[in-house]
């Protein structure tokens, strides 16, 4: 039988020691009895048998912040009525015992509950909270990192072991409910909760403040226009490329400068990796299984970067896609590796556009037209060449659009003595390298180097395959 009243104390608290003489009185005279929970020493108080709450389960469940706390309502639903600290008049009124604490000081504030010790909230939540995910207990001698490898949870690199404490911290990076279903993860089309996503974000090495960006990336991947299922299954190189615009990129400390497409920045590295791990672990998209890539590309570990938005006259990718500068946006592109465009000689936009055009023609194959999209990555030095002559981003796009077309005869199968190319049926037509809206332009990179680059797209672009998808970042964490 549960007592109608519960008292939470700790021996280490002078106020609890002060009211020790009161406790047997309460136990005897309170209607329905009293359960005493002690947070530090089960031998306290003397003369009354206390319940050992050193694990703090009762204190955590009842959100005890101060000791002593006297609750009415029994063990499980004691949260409603309570008095905290020692205020004799209040305790007398609460208990209906008119002479309670006669001879004691009339008032003394309580002490902090052990549940409020630094780091304790997460430890307790991890210990006592109900997770949707199965808990896996490792043997004492088992190495955590090796255990993750052995269970097939990694991309080949070590992952951060997803302990309950870490997952709780990750979930705190978002205001979304852990049980919310974010969507069905391809290829197995498994309903996925925010909690499962948080587990994989932990493993990828994300900080909790990146979690809203990871969430937005996953939402974009689940948009049917992105065609994540087909992208995963294809023999082609491509995989999700994650581009982040807006204040959230800066807040996460993302790199859009020197070596922006390379290693060394935690946010860039782990946000892209979280998406890949989710597809692997929840979606079941395992290389050699349903991932049938002939060669793949190194970006399948992670491929994520922010755009350099330091030039107010250069519209960002997100702005091209209908968002405002102040919006935080994640865009996903089905892309492959990186192709360099070296041009150290052009000092006019026309000349530079000529270099860009010739290099862009080589995406997938120099004789394939209309097959795939691409991202042109313009470096700061090349941007300077354009700006110096008064060219805007739309001027560049227009120039590329005009130049990236050829008479079909130049690229038909067999032309140049090369069997690969466009079908004979297109003879007589003018062909465009990219479909409308298929060439995206971003700007990033270090300030030294007249090097731009191309991220080629999947050879299944547009409605029959993948289109770029952009998602606003819904929350910015707490």
């Amino acid at each position, binding site marked *: 039988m549960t007592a109608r009243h519960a008292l939470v104390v700790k021996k280490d608290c002078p106020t609890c020691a002060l009211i020790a003489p009161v406790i047997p009185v309460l136990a005897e005279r309170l209607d329905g009895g009293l359960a005493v929970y002690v947070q530090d020493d089960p031998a306290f108080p003397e003369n009354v048998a206390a319940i050992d709450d050193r694990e703090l389960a009762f204190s955590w469940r009842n959100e005890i912040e101060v000791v002593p706390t006297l609750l009415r309502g029994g063990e499980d639903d004691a949260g409603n009525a309570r008095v905290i600290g020692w205020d004799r008049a209040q305790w007398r009124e609460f208990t209906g015992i008119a002479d309670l604490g006669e001879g004691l000081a009339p008032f003394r504030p309580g002490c902090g509950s052990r549940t409020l010790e630094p780091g304790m909230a997460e430890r307790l939540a991890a210990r006592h909270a109900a997770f949707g995910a199965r*808990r*896996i207990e*490792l043997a004492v001698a088992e190495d955590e990192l090796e255990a993750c490898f052995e269970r097939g949870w990694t991309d080949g690199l070590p992952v951060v072991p997803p302990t309950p404490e870490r997952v709780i911290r990750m979930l705190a990076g978002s205001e979304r409910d852990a049980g919310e279903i974010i969507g069905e993860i391809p290829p197995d089309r498994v309903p996925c909760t925010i909690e499962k996503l948080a587990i994989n974000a932990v493993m990828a090495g994300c900080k909790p403040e990146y979690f809203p960006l990871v969430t937005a990336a996953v939402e974009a991947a689940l948009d049917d226009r992105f065609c994540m299922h087909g992208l995963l299954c294809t023999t082609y190189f491509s995989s999700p490329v994650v581009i982040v615009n807006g204040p959230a990129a800066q807040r996460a400390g993302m790199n859009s400068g020197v070596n922006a497409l390379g290693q060394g920045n935690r946010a860039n590295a782990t946000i892209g990796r979280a998406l890949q791990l989710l597809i692997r672990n929840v979606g079941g998209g395992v290389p050699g299984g349903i991932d049938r890539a002939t060669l793949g590309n190194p970006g399948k570990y992670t491929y994520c970067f922010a755009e350099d938005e330091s030039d107010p006259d250069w519209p960002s990718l997100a702005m091209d896609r209908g968002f405002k500068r102040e919006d935080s946006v994640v865009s996903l592109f089905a892309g492959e590796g990186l192709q360099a465009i070296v041009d150290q000689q052009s000092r006019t936009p026309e000349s530079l556009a000529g270099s860009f055009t010739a290099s862009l023609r080589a995406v997938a194959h120099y004789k394939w037209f209309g097959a795939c999209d691409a991202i042109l990555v313009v470096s700061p030095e090349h941007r300077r060449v354009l700006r110096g002559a008064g060219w805007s981003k739309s001027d560049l796009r227009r120039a590329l659009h005009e130049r990236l077309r050829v008479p079909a005869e130049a690229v038909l199968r067999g032309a140049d003595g090369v069997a690969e190319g466009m079908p004979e049926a297109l003879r007589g037509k003018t062909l465009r390298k990219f479909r409308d809206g298929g060439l995206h332009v971003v700007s990033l990179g270090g300030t030294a180097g007249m090097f731009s680059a191309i991220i080629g797209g999947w050879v299944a672009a547009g409605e*029959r395959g993948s289109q770029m998808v952009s998602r606003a970042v819904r929350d910015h964490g707490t």
Partner: protein
Amino acid sequence: MTSTSLLDPTAELRPVARQLTPRLERLAGATVGLLDISKPRGREFLDEVESLLAEAGAAVKRYSKPTFTRVAPIALMQQIGAECDAVVEALAD
């Protein structure tokens, strides 16, 4: 020393072992669907399959997916299931 507890990052699914549908005892008189997934040269491949099936006395119905990049629409799968005794899916390329 306490053991470490980890949260399972996977879908926690146990794959269902599906029973094979009954095999056709003979092709003669059966209706066989040929599904083109819309990859290059799928049509040529299925033309060959169709002529072999016709020689064996099967009736053939041809279908195609809107695009190879996505799974077949449910309506198409149901249509094939309703109209055919068996189906051959052509990956081609």
